[in-house]
C-alpha cells in the first residue's frame, strides 16, 4: 500500500513542520511517497531521507493553485495506485482535498487526528462539534483523501533512513484549473512561529483590554505564537490573521494558554484539538473553565507577569 503525502514547503524549500508530521503519520500505513511542488527539493532531500520517504514526485511550480494541484495529485495518485493521500489541514489543504476527492471518487475526511490501518482498512478519528465529540470512521471506498491536523502526530525520523528517488512529473492542467486569475501578496513574517502549526499558542481575549505585552512576553519566552479572539481582532488589537477559532485559524498546539478569553463555542471550534488547555479568567463562570485542563480564576495582569517571571527564574536555574 502506498500513501502520497503532499510536502508543503516555504519558498526557500524548507519543508513546513506539517510535512514531516504527515510523513510520520503515513509510515505505519505503507510505503510513503512525497509530492513536491516547484523548486528547492534538493536541499530538503536529506530531511526526507531521514523521514523515510521512498519516492518524491516533483511537480512544476505552476500547479500550486488548489484546483491545479488537485488535478496534478490525481495524476500522480492514479499512476502510483496509492490508496491514501495525506495533506495538512489548512484552508488550502482542504480545498485541494475536496477537488482531488471528486476527481478520484474518493472518501474525504478533514481535520483528522489519527489515521490507522486495521485489517487492511483505513480508519480515521477526529473530534467534532467543537471538541465535544469524537468519531471514528472506516473508509469503505478504494481511495481516501485525508487532511491531518497540525501537531496530531509528532514528527520523528524513520527507523532506517531511505534514499529517496526523485521523479519529475509533467502534468497537463485543464483550462478550468487555470480559469482563476490570482494576485498573491505574501504576508510579512512575524518572527514568531506560524500560528496554525505552533507547538505553543498564547491567545489574548477581550480581557487584555488592548494590553498585549504580557501575552507577547509569555509567548516569546515559550517560543510560541500569539493568537487573538475575534473580539481582539475586531478591536484591532491584533491583526485578523491571528484570529483563532471557527472562522479564524484552527490551531492544535501541544499547549494552549487563553488569557481573558471566555471560551465561546466559536472560539473553541478552532482550538478543540489543543493538547493541554490553560485558562486565566477573572470570571469563575467563564465557559473556558468547562474544558480547561488547568484553570486560574484571577486577574491576568497579576497572573501572567508572575507566571512569566517564575518560568524565567526556573529556566535560569536549570
Amino acid at each position, binding site marked *: 500500500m502506498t500513501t502520497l503525502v503532499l510536502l508543503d514547503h516555504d519558498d526557500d524549500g524548507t519543508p513546513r513542520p506539517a510535512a514531516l508530521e504527515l510523513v510520520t503519520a503515513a509510515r505505519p500505513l505503507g510505503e510513503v511517497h512525497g509530492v513536491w511542488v516547484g523548486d528547492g527539493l534538493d536541499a530538503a532531500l536529506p530531511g526526507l531521507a531521514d523521514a523515510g520517504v521512498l519516492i518524491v514526485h516533483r511537480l512544476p511550480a505552476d500547479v500550486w493553485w*488548489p*484546483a491545479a494541484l488537485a488535478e496534478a495529485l490525481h495524476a500522480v495518485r492514479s499512476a502510483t495506485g496509492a490508496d491514501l493521500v495525506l495533506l495538512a489541514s489548512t*484552508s488550502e489543504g*482542504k*480545498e485541494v482535498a*475536496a*477537488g482531488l*476527492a*471528486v476527481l478520484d471518487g474518493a472518501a*474525504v475526511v*478533514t*481535520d483528522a487526528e489519527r489515521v490507522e490501518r486495521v485489517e487492511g482498512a483505513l480508519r480515521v478519528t477526529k473530534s467534532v*462539534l*467543537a*471538541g*465535544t*465529540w*469524537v*468519531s*471514528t*470512521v*472506516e473508509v*469503505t*471506498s478504494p481511495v*481516501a483523501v485525508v487532511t491531518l491536523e497540525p501537531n496530531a502526530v509528532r514528527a520523528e525520523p524513520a527507523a532506517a533512513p531511505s534514499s529517496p528517488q526523485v521523479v519529475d512529473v509533467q502534468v497537463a492542467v485543464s483550462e*478550468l484549473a487555470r*480559469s*482563476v*486569475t490570482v*494576485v*498573491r*501578496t*505574501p*504576508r510579512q513574517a512575524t518572527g514568531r512561529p*506560524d500560528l496554525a502549526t505552533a507547538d*505553543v499558542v498564547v491567545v489574548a481575549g477581550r480581557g487584555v483590554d488592548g494590553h498585549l505585552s504580557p501575552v507577547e512576553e509569555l509567548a516569546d519566552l*515559550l517560543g510560541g505564537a500569539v493568537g487573538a479572539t475575534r473580539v481582539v481582532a475586531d478591536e484591532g488589537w491584533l491583526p485578523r*490573521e491571528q484570529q483563532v477559532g*471557527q*472562522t479564524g485559524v484552527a490551531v492544535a498546539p501541544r499547549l494552549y494558554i487563553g488569557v481573558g478569553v471566555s471560551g465561546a463555542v466559536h472560539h473553541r*471550534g478552532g482550538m478543540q484539538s489543543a493538547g493541554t488547555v*490553560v485558562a486565566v479568567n477573572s470570571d*469563575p463562570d467563564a465557559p473556558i*473553565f468547562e*474544558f*480547561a*485542563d*488547568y*484553570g*486560574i480564576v*484571577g486577574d491576568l495582569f497579576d497572573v*501572567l*507577569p*508572575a*507566571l*512569566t*517571571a*517564575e*518560568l524565567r527564574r*526556573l529556566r535560569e536555574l536549570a
Partner: protein
Amino acid sequence: MSTRVPGPSRVGRGSPGNLPRVKIVVAVKHVPDVQSTRMLGADGRLRRDGGDGTLNELDENAVEAAVQIAAATSGEVVALSVGPADAHDAVRRALQLGASRGVVVSDERLVGLDALGTAAVLAAAVTVEGGVDLVLTGMASTDGLTSVVPTALAAYLRLPALALAAHVDVADGTVHVRRELDHAVEELSAPLPAVVSVTDAANEPSFPGFRAIMAARKKPVQELGLDEVVPGLTSLGLDPSMLGGRTRVLHAEPQQPRTDRVLVTDDGDAGVRLAAWLVDQRLV
C-alpha cells in the same frame, strides 16, 4: 475558459435598464444551533431532533453577499438547500434575509449523505435550475466544519472555485474576490459562472424586520425529490450510486473529560504554581 451551466435559455426574460441580470444560487444548510447541546446518534450522524435548529450562521453571510450582488445587478437570488424536512427552515430564513425564492431537495434516499454526496446533489440541483451565473456558499457548516462542499460543488459543476472570500463583487461578467490566508492575501478573479464561498468577514448580515418576515411567507419554495435531480446528475456525468458509501462510522462518543483537571483561584501565587505545573507536565 469555462462553460455556462446548462439550462433553459434566459432570452426574453426582460431585464430592466441595461444592467445584466445575474442569477445567483446561494446554498444554505440547516444545522443545530451552535449554542445548544449537540450530539451524534448511534449511527454517528448528527441528531436533528433537538429542535434547536437554525440556518447555519455562516450561510447568512453568503445570503447577504448574494442579496447585495443581486441589488447591484438587478439579479435574482435562489436559496437552495439539501436535507431533511428542516431544510425548509433554512430556506425560509434565507428568504427573510432577502432571497427571492427557494429550492429544497429532500428525499428519504438522501438521508445521511456525506459532504461529497451533498455537493453532488447541490450541483445537480443547480444544473436543473439552469442559467445560473454565480453559486455562493458559506465558508463552512458549523456542524460538519468540513469546508469541503463548496470546492467539491465547483468541481462537480466544472466551474472555477473561489473559496473563502472576505470580499466579493461582480462586474462585467467577472467575479472578484479577496481572500486572506495565513501566509498571503490573494486577489482572485474569474469569469462567470463560478462558485464562491464567503467568510464571516465579507459583510454584516442584516436582521430581518417584521415586513421582511411577512414578505418571505409569500415567496415560492419548490421541493425536489431525488428523481427530479437525477437528470442534473446525469448531465454532469454522475449517477445516484456515487452519492454515498465512501465511509462508515465505527464509533461516535462524547469526548471524555479529563479527570485530573485543576481549577484554582488566585491568592497571589497562582502564576508561580502554574509555572511549576507546566514544568512538571513537561509542557515548557
